[in-house]
């Protein structure tokens, strides 16, 4: 079985609003490098500054080598690899169901979404039907993950620009999201709740009222953030008109997610190439036209509101599914129920086989993408028919977003550098993998 990735090169992109700037600002053939202009290159005034890998505002261990002319950024090189963990290689050494544990640790802010992409890829190769309840619960968890990711982004990005109190607000509400994860999966982060075929466990009884309380509370919390930032003159001064990225440049650089939508491209995989049950829920895709740091902030805040709406709709559906199965009934792939192990010899054998040897996945290759909190998170998997993946490759949206850094740095000052790098929302775990 071969499923070729769909080609999107010929697509016409829905662009909103007037062009942000004329022409292209991509500085070089290698878009991550901003060369010092020739007329400045021989001056003694150019000051190379090393920024990172341990710097409080690099969102992890990013290292930038910046050339400064006074306060102006004239040259930029990104050095990555400080968090290279060898995920893809390591996953080849693990059986399919053990490998599910790895993707969440890449993008540790939107962990459920990474897990989802890999699990969907396995299911596509196995041609496995997933019960409706599992699909809706997955969708709910993905949206909670998106809220979690945007909360941490907002807290840390605002902290870097000087709004310290936002960090405390956002981490207060992040704990509320993590409480829901803990209720369901037993752990705050990296729950590994998604299983090939459905969910690892049924949804616990207390989850629905807790989640409803959260849905009532969260929009008010978002109002609080907006009251602090959206019309705050200092915030506007630091973010508006900074880090411009036009729609054409964003597309040329392969951007996706909030960065793309802030540049006026109306593109969201959840709506345009629906997976899970996104075609059955009602939500708006926020798009802004100015392509600056401020608009990226607006897109993310609006997305949090929409995510809360999706969570509510998922809860309405799940309410009616009490007692329905949460995992596919395929004993070759899915672990048998715990209680059967004591009574059924066959179940015990299946359990033993899956745990020790793992299940086999038919030969083939597959590309699955989901709309992660940072954009298109793709998972390309090749199976040779054995119990372990033959090759796993991830398309990390953070890595692509990082490539836009040099383009956004047009006439930027060194203080803007922090705001711009923050606004692209790169997670180094995902960049380096």
């Amino acid at each position, binding site marked *: 079985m071969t499923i070729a990735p769909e080609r999107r090169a010929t697509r016409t992109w829905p662009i909103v609003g007037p062009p942000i700037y004329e022409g292209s600002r991509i500085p070089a053939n290698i878009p991550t490098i901003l060369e010092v202009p020739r007329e400045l290159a021989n001056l003694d005034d150019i000051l190379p500054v090393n920024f990172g890998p341990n710097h409080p505002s690099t969102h992890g*261990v990013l290292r930038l080598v910046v050339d400064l002319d006074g306060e102006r950024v004239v040259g930029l090189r990104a050095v990555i690899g*400080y*968090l*290279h963990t060898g995920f893809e*290689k390591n996953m080849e050494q693990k059986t399919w169901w053990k490998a599910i544990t790895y993707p969440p640790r890449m993008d540790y802010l939107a962990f459920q979404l990474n897990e989802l992409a890999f699990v969907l890829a396995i299911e596509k190769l196995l041609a496995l039907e997933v019960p409706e309840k599992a699909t809706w619960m997955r969708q709910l968890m993905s949206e909670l993950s998106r809220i979690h990711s945007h909360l941490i982004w907002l807290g840390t990005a605002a902290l870097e620009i000087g709004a310290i109190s936002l*960090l405390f607000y956002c981490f207060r509400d992040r704990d509320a999201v993590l409480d829901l994860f803990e209720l369901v999966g037993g752990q705050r982060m990296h729950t590994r709740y998604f299983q090939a075929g459905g969910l690892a466990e049924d949804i616990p009884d207390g989850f629905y009222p807790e989640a409803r309380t959260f849905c009532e509370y969260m929009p008010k919390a978002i109002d609080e953030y907006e009251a602090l930032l959206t019309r705050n003159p200092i915030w506007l001064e630091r973010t508006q008109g900074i880090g411009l990225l036009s729609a054409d440049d964003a597309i040329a650089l392969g951007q996706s997610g909030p960065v793309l939508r802030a540049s006026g491209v109306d593109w969201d995989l959840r709506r345009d190439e629906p997976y899970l049950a996104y075609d059955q829920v009602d939500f708006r895709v926020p798009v802004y036209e100015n392509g600056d740091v401020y608009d990226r902030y607006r897109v993310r805040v609006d997305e949090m509101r929409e995510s809360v709406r999706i969570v509510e709709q998922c809860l309405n559906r799940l309410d009616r599914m009490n007692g329905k199965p949460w995992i596919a009934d395929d004993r070759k792939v899915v672990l048998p129920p715990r209680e059967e192990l004591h009574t059924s010899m066959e179940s015990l054998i299946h359990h033993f086989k899956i745990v020790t040897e793992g299940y086999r996945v038919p030969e083939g290759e597959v590309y699955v993408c989901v709309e992660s909190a940072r954009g298109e998170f793709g998972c390309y998997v090749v199976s040779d028919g054995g119990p372990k993946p033959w090759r796993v490759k991830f398309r990390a949206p953070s890595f692509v977003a990082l490539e836009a850094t040099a383009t956004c740095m047009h006439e930027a000052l060194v203080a803007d550098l922090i705001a711009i790098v923050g606004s692209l929302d790169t997670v180094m775990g995902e960049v380096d993998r």
Partner: protein
Amino acid sequence: MSADELEQYLGITTLMRAVAWAQTKSMWPDQFGLSCCAMEMIAIVGPRYDIARFGMEAFRASPRQADLLIVSGRVAHKMAAPLRQIYDQMLEPKWVIAMGACASSGGMFNNYTVLQGVDKIVPVDVYVPFCPPRPEALMEGIIRLHEAVQAGIPPAYERRAVAT
């Protein structure tokens, strides 16, 4: 009456004890986030866990102002040299917490790039297990470290060298 009780009633103490008490009440951590665990490390500053109760909310961006290095996450070989450099820049006395499975032992990443335990390059005082540890677990590690300091146990670099 034991020596401890006498100290308590009369309000006398030794200089070493007074210093150890002061060290535990303002042990400033270095702001050094690596990966997943860094999120839980930031969470202890947040309102629910509130590390300010221990006088530790001042995360220092410069290692020269920090007393405690929390290695929060997996250390790639490429990161090992900067990590050791940060540790060397810290002034003595200094302590190290290896937070999470990856920093303690390499965790689930037994491969070509991840350092199999940060104790190979810096002497570690406290190991906090799990992946990632809950903020409560990290705070338990911090309290254990405080207890050790108050009991007069010297920092790890005085007791053992790093594994080679």
